[in-house]
């Protein structure tokens, strides 16, 4: 029962064990976040209802007025919905971190001899698992409203990998934002305009050709459009390599910029 004596935990020796410990710490945090997710089912319900409403609205309300040559609109729509799901899901990464910051839980973690990247890695990994769940659900919803895969299972599988990788990268963007604001409400408020522009000024729901010419350059050259393009080609046929590579390149570029930024913000975040 004594608390005196040398601490039980020992120092990491060498780079290899540091990486191993960062991985273990990240897994421990992922586990914690998944438990939290399971015990607050309303988070999952809200994450599901919103895209469900989008599917119903675009499929049955706006869909009749949107013409996309060469596509049944539901087949054009669903890849956009999938991208929307992972992009909106990424916002929750920042919201979760901001909430942990507000409650002081992150302070406790910052005083522990754990890897500095584990809090972020654990959060983004858990959110990847959540995205996987919600996307799977939305694929089911898609099939129920008439969506069909015109290619094959392998290509559709690749589409989902591309999609989830993009969602994972996007999570790091909002991790950075979530750590830069004082609470969950601010995280939500700060993230929403960004996500709205990224998702709607893209090819997710409509053709970019019909947008004003000044908007087209952005709409055509941004990560959501690339990802939607890849998922669309991989599920509906047509040339898919260029879009897939573009999406993966965006994913890599976002990770390259925002992982260091978010970790830097985590190290620096100072709550008085």
């Amino acid at each position, binding site marked *: *029962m*004594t*608390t*005196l*004596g040398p*601490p*039980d*935990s*020992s*120092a990491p020796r060498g780079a290899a064990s540091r990486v191993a*410990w960062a991985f*273990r*710490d990240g897994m*421990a*945090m992922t*586990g*914690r976040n998944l*438990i*939290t997710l399971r*015990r*607050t089912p309303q988070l999952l319900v809200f994450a599901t209802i919103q895209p469900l409403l989008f599917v119903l609205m675009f499929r049955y309300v706006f869909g009749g007025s949107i013409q996309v040559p060469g596509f049944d609109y539901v087949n054009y729509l669903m890849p956009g919905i999938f991208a929307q799901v992972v992009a909106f899901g990424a916002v929750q990464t920042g919201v979760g971190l901001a909430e942990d910051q507000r*409650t*002081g*839980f992150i*302070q*406790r*973690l*910052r*005083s*522990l*001899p*754990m890897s500095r990247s*584990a809090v972020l890695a654990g959060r983004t990994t858990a959110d990847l698992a959540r995205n996987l769940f919600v996307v799977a659900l939305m694929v089911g919803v898609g099939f129920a409203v008439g969506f069909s895969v015109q290619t094959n299972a392998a290509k559709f599988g690749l589409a989902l990998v591309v999609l989830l990788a993009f969602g994972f990268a996007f999570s790091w963007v909002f991790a950075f934002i979530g750590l830069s604001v004082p609470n969950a409400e601010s995280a939500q408020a700060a993230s929403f305009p960004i996500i709205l522009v990224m998702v709607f000024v893209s090819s997710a729901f409509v053709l970019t050709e019909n947008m004003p010419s000044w908007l087209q350059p952005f709409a055509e050259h941004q990560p959501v459009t690339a990802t939607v393009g890849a998922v669309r080609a991989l599920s509906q046929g047509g040339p898919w390599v260029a879009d897939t590579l573009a999406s993966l390149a965006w994913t890599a570029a976002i990770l390259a910029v925002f992982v260091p930024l978010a970790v830097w913000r985590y190290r620096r975040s*100072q*709550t*008085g």
Partner: protein
Amino acid sequence: MSEAGAVEVRALVKTFGTVRALDGVDFRVERGTVLGLLGPNGAGKTTAVHVLATIITPDAGEARVLGVDVVGDPDAVRRSIGLAGQYAAVDGTLTGRENLRLVGRLTHLPRRAAVARADELLERFGLTDAADRMARTYSGGMRRRLDLAAALVHRPPVVFLDEPTTGLDPSSRNDLWDTVRDLVRDGTTVLLTTQYLEEADQLADRIVVIDHGRVVAEGTQAELKSRIGTTVIELRMADVACAGGAREVLEAAGLGPVTGEGDALRLSAPDGGRALLQAMRALDARGLEPASAAVHEPSLDDVFLALTTPGEPGAVPA
């Protein structure tokens, strides 16, 4: 290393925007002792603890834990400290047991050791029955105990307690005090911040009083109290005019400087009961009758009045 105190802070400065939260703070905690860092809200107590716990980095000055610089080798510092605080930073959606196991894993205990340690701490903190309930269902006192248990998972030799009893009911507070005493008996060094003189009085070997980011006094309880008188007498007179008259009477009776506003009067004295008798006699002789009279231990306000405004009435007992 053997010369180093458990905690050494020198000329520590930390600024948030335009606020100088720490404005050149020095103090030292010897191994195996309890230092009470006493001060009002915003004095810089929490900032000092956060610097020592490597949560924030200081702008200037030096802070060492067991001889290790908090900026130079934060990981080594983190292995030897535990932090528990007023916000009870546990995860509300995890159970008590899960919280402790998580901290065990994150402090790199072997898995089996983390499980055993969690059970041991739940038992010790009287949380075994609630171990598998989500922490958000806990009472305030239980949350604090879980928070403190989480700080002890890796058996840190130095523990920081940031206002551990703020907002607790008296019985939970007493329980927590007992726990801190047990820790100290086991040889742990404790740095405790508090707004309550009584708490520092109960637990600390030495007290450092800080205000506006500066150390304004330091010493044992006895040393600090001797600077302000051990007790405070509060009298309430019928009206302001009576209070003015009574003030003159009391000062003339040698009961020292009298403070207070309106119809209230305050004076401090080393022996409260005796001073109260003297005051009553002096007032009675002039036909003055207080509406109420009370004797109490000096509050933090009294300490501050005495320590931060030297020379003013009420500051230094004759």
